């Protein structure tokens, strides 16, 4: 017994030593954005040379995705260039049959893998001006890169949650064009129709597609009735290659697995670990309970809770560390003002002392030898401006378990 306790204690100590601590934290100065507004979903570009984030207008009537180049990667905080919206404002389309309008709502940016000279991104955006909260909003998938800006879809229903495949050849997204919401693939190099439907539940909706790092699997949240499960499609490109819709539907059934069978309530956006062996997701046991952070083996098996009462990340699912040994999350705690936490795959979650409050949207990125963490926060814990959610950046260092 004593030996067991000793081993467990030693194991805990070793695990606790493999963590992160905040070495420095700073607000991110982003030239060119309105001073008032709510920032969300900050992301690093895959090459670490640009950042993106959403900005909800101060009046709540606009939401746009911004991009800014990192001018001096070695500096801390990173010095950014003037931010610009992904979707150009007052874009003129001489060929539009409809009246030209400003695009005012864009969200859910997905970065393509680095390719040549450009950094392609995809967002869900409206073609026509809408007011936030308007009863009818139609999002389409918008592609932007140097020399190319266009809508990829125009279904008339909402197309959202774009997600680039790791090789950049495909873009997965959810579309309401057929039923409640199905996952589609846009193949950039298709010989004919680039769009392919890959989920077919007529009474349910499949949303939040997420690619495995290998590019052969796709996870998504399937909502049916009152419950949401995490599903994974094995060999998604084989499915996409099947051009006959009936055969594809049949093949989809055989390639799709439910990783949370029997789950009784909500699962939210999934994300694969960097090694592809795990899928993390938030789930609520009930509508009244908090969102807990779970991991489940990609190959199937029991889900394991890593963090209770987390603040769910909706855009792209939970944020894995680049090493895949854990996740960065936000602990929903009124007392602690929603601190950022490091959630190891094995071990106890540890709070990250950023000195900020009401944190959200952690996005880790290793650039060179340094691990950075983008996040949003509503000001410093000790004082200063607290009204608007701003982007922050932290530089992390290994935690030796002091």
């Amino acid at each position: 017994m004593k030996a067991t306790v000793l081993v467990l204690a030693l194991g805990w100590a070793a695990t606790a030593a493999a963590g992160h601590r905040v070495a420095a934290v700073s607000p991110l100065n982003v030239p060119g954005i309105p001073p008032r507004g709510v920032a969300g979903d900050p992301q690093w570009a895959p090459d670490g040379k640009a950042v993106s984030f959403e900005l909800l207008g101060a009046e709540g009537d606009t939401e746009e995705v911004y991009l800014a180049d990192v001018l001096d990667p070695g500096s801390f905080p990173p010095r950014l260039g003037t931010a610009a919206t992904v979707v150009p404002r007052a874009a003129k389309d001489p060929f539009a049959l409809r009246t030209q309008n400003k695009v005012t709502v864009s969200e859910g940016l997905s970065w393509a893998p680095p390719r040549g000279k450009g950094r392609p991104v995809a967002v869900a955006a409206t073609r026509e001006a809408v007011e936030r909260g308007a009863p009818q909003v139609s999002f389409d998938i918008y592609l932007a890169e140097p020399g190319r800006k266009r809508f990829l879809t125009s279904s008339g229903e909402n197309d959202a949650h774009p997600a680039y495949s790791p090789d950049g050849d495909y873009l997965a997204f959810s579309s309401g064009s057929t039923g409640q919401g199905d996952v589609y693939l846009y193949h950039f190099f298709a010989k004919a129709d680039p769009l392919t439907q890959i989920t077919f539940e007529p009474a349910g909706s499949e949303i939040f597609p997420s690619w495995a790092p290998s590019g052969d699997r796709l996870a998504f949240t399937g909502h049916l009735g009152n419950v949401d499960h995490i599903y994974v499609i094995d060999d998604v490109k084989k499915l996409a290659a099947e051009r006959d819709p009936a055969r594809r539907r049949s093949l989809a059934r055989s390639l799709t697995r439910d990783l949370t069978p029997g789950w009784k309530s909500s699962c939210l956006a999934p994300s694969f670990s960097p090694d592809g062996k795990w899928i993390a997701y938030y789930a609520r046991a009930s509508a009244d309970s908090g969102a807990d952070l779970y991991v489940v083996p990609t190959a199937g098996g029991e889900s394991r809770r890593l963090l209770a009462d987390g603040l769910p990340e909706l855009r792209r699912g939970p944020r894995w560390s680049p090493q895949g040994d854990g996740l960065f999350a936000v602990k929903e705690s009124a007392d602690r003002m929603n601190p950022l936490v490091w959630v190891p795959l094995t071990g106890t979650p540890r709070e990250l002392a950023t000195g900020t409050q009401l944190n959200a949207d952690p996005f880790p990125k290793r650039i060179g030898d340094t691990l950075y963490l983008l996040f949003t926060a509503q000001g410093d814990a000790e004082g200063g401006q607290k009204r608007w959610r701003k982007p922050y950046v932290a530089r992390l260092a290994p935690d030796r378990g002091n």
Partner: protein
Amino acid sequence: MERRLRPLLIAAALALAALALPRPGWTAAYESLVEQGSFYLERGATYGADAVRALEKAEQESPERAGTDPKFLAALARAYALTSRFTEAYWVLDRWERLGALAPVGEALRARLLSESGLGRLRLSSAVPVGRITARLVPEEEERIEVTARKALDRLGELLARGLELTDGGVTLLVPEGRYAIACDGPLLYAPRDPTSVEVWAGDEGAVRLVAAAPDPAGWTISAGNRTVSLSWPPIAGAAYELAREQGQGERSTVYRGAEPTFQDAGLPVGARVRYVLKTYGPQGDLIAVSSAEAQTMPPVSRLAAEARLGADLRVTVSWTLGQGAADRVRVVRKGPRSEDVVADVQERDAILKGSVTDGPFTPAAEKLGLTYRVEAWVAEAEAASAEAEAPAEVPPLVERVTSVTQGVERGAVVLQWDTLPREGVAQGYAVFRQRGEGIVGELVGRVEDPFAREFEYAVEDPLKASEWRHFVVPYLGDRYLLDPEDVSFGGQVPEETLERRAARGRRPPNLALAWDAAPGAAGYAVKVGEGKEVFVKRPYLEITGLQSALMATTHEVKIYALDVEGRKKGLVTVQIQYEHYPRVGPKEEEP
């Protein structure tokens, strides 16, 4: 007359005025087609091709009007863009902009094309005009071409196949992003004819430099010598040149780099066919043109003419003229019965093409001497002559004697003419003697240094007296007079009376009386005077007359041989006889 003409003139003026006025029918057709095109445009992409057709027809209807009509240009640009003919849309916008500023819709369209359509600009340019070219643009990774770009690529391919006129040194294409192999073709184009890889990025600009096939080979000035080729070509301002020579099995070597459009290549083999490749580089060092031309150095001379002529100095002059071609030396060879002698080996450049050499002098002999000269033209390091010709010459036989001397006195001069035996015979010259009287020693009047001479004249003070003189013409060779061998005669086996008695009787004694001891066993004897006459005697005694001349001193060699029964000679005695000549010193008026 005037009254009848007036109506005709008025009618003609009205007709001319009507022709000068713009016809309403033409304008209406153009306008109608432009309106039609705009109508189709408003109906969207489905009618894009119809819009293009109508607008292109409008341009054919009135090209001048279309070129300056912003409404037409705007509609055409939109129609081209709508039908994925993005490059042509871009060109129309350029035309529109040259009229003045683009309207906002034009600016928006151009921004759309360049920044939002996934197209990159690819500029094909040439520093030297290449005229009209066609091109093929083939994706290197077909499967990596986006589905939305395929139609644009097809339309672009059609445009390139129709041909492009590179004005102002270049043309810009709008190309979907991707990696391509581009190959061009055109009569004035050198490269790239083989597929060349080019990468196009959306929103970015790339370039393909075309290399012209220039200058036209017909524009080169080429002058070929034996081993040199002089080249010049039309210059290009600011250009630098690199000239390479190709010979034999395609071996190429650079022979010139510089800014001058001219070069002389030296040290080439004769008759060599050489190809020159000229590369022209622009001020930035980029290759802008390539041209080539061929030249051939002069082949070895293959014809020559030669002539050999015997001169008055008994020397043979061999002259030649070479035909067109290269030669480094001329050899003149005298062919003999058993050997050949090189008379001359000429290598001076100026003397090769046309020259002469002299051989001799030749000494006439009893028989005429036939000579054959072979003139050879050689190229250095050749194994054989490239051309040769033979020229015969003949040295006539030696004069034996002068025959039939005729003399006359004309106009205060004595004129002598003579023949020789043989008639064509030659000597080095002829000495003319005169004898003023019988028995008087002759005196030398003059010499004719001409082997072929047959006459002589000299002035006299007293033609009458001169007419009585006797003249003798004696050929000579060197310092030897060729006396008439017939003058020498033999006689008297045994003297019957003494020479004194004979002289007293008035019978001229011989010049020489020979007696010798009999040789044991001799069947007879042979006596030879000089190289000429020979006589056979039985007894050891002979008288010889004619050895002495009243004209000149003479020298004779008399040889005596003993003959055995079989006629074999054995030398017994050799006698050298020399007669001196003492010219007579007479009255002064008689002296020549």
